[in-house]
């Protein structure tokens, strides 16, 4: 789960990482009031769960409350890479001397936390990695031991830091690592981490991603989930415990198992179609769950045909067929549905479908044939 900058900063402050003072505003008027409180120069920053907001014009540095108001006016409602800006963060200005980069992530291959530090901050770290790899210090922490004091020293000396900056960065490193552990984060990133004229080390931005699987032990963080920002169909799917991701095409897709569904999407694309979604109904032939999934998939107006791809493992094909028929009956869907049943008891399942098939349902034996058919039907206009 990705957190907004203002949420991430609040969590980091609780772990002893210093940030600038900030106020969240939902209207231009609130932005003006916030700027009045700080006085002087302030930054107006779009709060969106995506990168690249600076380039998109989502961050403006202004010098008066009136300017803050008009900047907020422009930024609020703005679309940044498909995300609508509904809040801005107003932050007091700072006298920045240097900009650095610091993050802790989960390194999947090493199976350990990875700390990245660079004295080149405020720019895309992947870019630095390409153009100036020596500017990045990389170090793995041992998940059982935590970040050790000598490792902190190693990072600071490798980066060539001295004096107050070295001390300040060391403190942030320790606190950020603790935050990473205690928040069950998969990413905590500060870009830029700045040293101010008066020697303070501050997090000017914060990107925090918390591992979804750990949310059961962080109810306070789970509550931060922004329901409004989520796609309504994705939100409904989440509540029904279905794995659903909305895409741009017109062939609705349902199947069992993440890998099989991903593969189904690919095969549809290879057949010249465009998948409208990813939807994994999981194991089980539960008519209730299939109904909900069918309903969510077809509530996307763009969907013109549906491909239902099931490989019966433990779940038997005949049970799936009955579940599907009952789901179609319940939801009254009249879009063309292509069913491909394979695996355990697939014969029996196909038989059941053949005997009771509603007009809009066709069956195919293989994944490829089913994909081609679904693509054809979508092309013919579906509903």
């Amino acid at each position, binding site marked *: 789960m990705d957190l907004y900058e203002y949420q991430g900063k609040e969590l980091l402050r609780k772990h002893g990482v210093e940030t600038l003072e900030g106020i969240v505003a939902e209207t231009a008027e609130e932005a003006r009031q916030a700027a009045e409180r700080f006085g002087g120069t302030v930054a107006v920053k779009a709060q969106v769960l995506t990168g690249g907001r600076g380039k998109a014009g989502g961050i403006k540095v202004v010098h008066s409350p009136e300017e803050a108001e008009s900047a907020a006016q422009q930024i609020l409602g703005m679309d940044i890479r498909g995300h609508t800006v509904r809040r801005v963060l107003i932050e007091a200005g700072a006298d920045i001397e240097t900009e650095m980069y610091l993050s802790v992530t989960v390194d999947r*291959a090493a199976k350990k936390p990875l700390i990245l530090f660079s004295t080149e901050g405020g720019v895309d770290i992947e870019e630095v990695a390409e153009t100036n790899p020596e500017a990045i210090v990389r170090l793995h922490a041992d998940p059982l031991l935590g970040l050790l004091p000598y490792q902190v020293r190693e990072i600071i000396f490798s980066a060539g830091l001295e004096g107050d900056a070295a001390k300040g960065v060391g403190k942030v490193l320790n606190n950020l690592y603790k935050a990473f552990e205690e928040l069950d984060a998969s990413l905590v990133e500060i870009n830029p981490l700045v040293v101010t004229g008066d020697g303070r080390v501050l997090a000017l931005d914060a990107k925090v991603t918390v591992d979804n699987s750990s949310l059961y032990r962080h109810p306070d963080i789970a509550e931060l989930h922004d329901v409004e920002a989520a796609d309504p169909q994705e939100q409904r799917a989440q509540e029904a415990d279905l794995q659903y991701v909305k895409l741009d095409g017109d062939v609705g897709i349902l199947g069992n198992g993440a*890998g099989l569904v991903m593969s189904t999407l690919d095969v549809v694309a290879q057949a010249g179609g465009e998948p409208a979604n990813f939807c994994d109904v999981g194991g089980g032939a539960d008519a209730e769950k299939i109904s909900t999934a069918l309903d969510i998939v077809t509530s996307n107006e763009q969907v013109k045909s549906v491909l239902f791809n099931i490989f019966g*493992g433990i779940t038997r094909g005949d049970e799936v067929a009955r579940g599907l028929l009952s789901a179609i009956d319940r939801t009254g869907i009249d879009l063309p549905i292509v069913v491909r049943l*394979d695996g355990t008891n697939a014969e029996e399942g196909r038989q059941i479908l053949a005997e009771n098939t509603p007009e809009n349902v066709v069956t195919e034996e293989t994944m490829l044939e089913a994909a081609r058919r679904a693509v054809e039907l979508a092309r013919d206009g579906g509903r």
Partner: protein
Amino acid sequence: MAILVDEGTRLLVQGITGREGAFHTGRMLESGTNVVAGVTPGKGGQDYEGVPVFNTVEQAVGETRANASVIFVPPPFAADAIFESLDGGMSTVCCITEGIPVHDMMRVTDYLQTKDATLIGPNCPGVLSPEKANVSIMPRDIFTPGNVGVVSRSGTLTYQIVNELTQRGIGQSTAVGIGGDPIIGTNFIEILAKFEADPETDCVVMIGEIGGNAEQLAAEYVQREMSTPVVAYIAGFTAPEGKTMGHAGAIVSGGESTAEAKSEALRRAGIRAATNPSEVADLVAEALG
């Protein structure tokens, strides 16, 4: 021969009295697996389908000499169950549980390095060696004994591909589901090495997906170390960036993690890569000659 589990496997089921644990214990027994013990804290002294249930792994091992375990314990307690299995001396631990926190798994895999054990999973379908041992939730009916090893990050996609192999008369030595989580106990390379060392495995099918770079690392390994032919398939070409596609680990987050990048790495390493699941069986038939 097979890898990881075979006739010598003496299996212990952690979470044997839970809904999933009980159901799949029944199926593993039906497949002829030697299930010697179950563990559910507080239910020691009972039995399930003739399998004695113990309170702790230590007691179970003391009484039954179990040497492998399969875990059906809910996510908040699963990491603890793995630690218990590792300390109990299991040589193979298979964790089926989906949804274990990533930080728990980093600690587990760190500790695993100090043990002479193989952890498969979590969030995996398990390991099955046809007609030898079934330490999995996989449907055994689609398998047939043979000389093709299968290693995969996905469950149903594995069934799909195994089924196509079986229908073409191509049998399997062992199928290993390594799991769809970001941090897993065993990655492709360790399993590929075991298949390479297995004289009865003549071809390996590797099924990958988006997320991470395990497939690239595996491709380098295949090119450098393996003489056994490998056929690969990667799922997730149509996955958008930043969205989790069902499996917690299946997320495109940077150039390396895309299906294109993985397929490209496989091709560069001279590995036969199928574009859809059906083609896998064709390529395996070709590789076997």
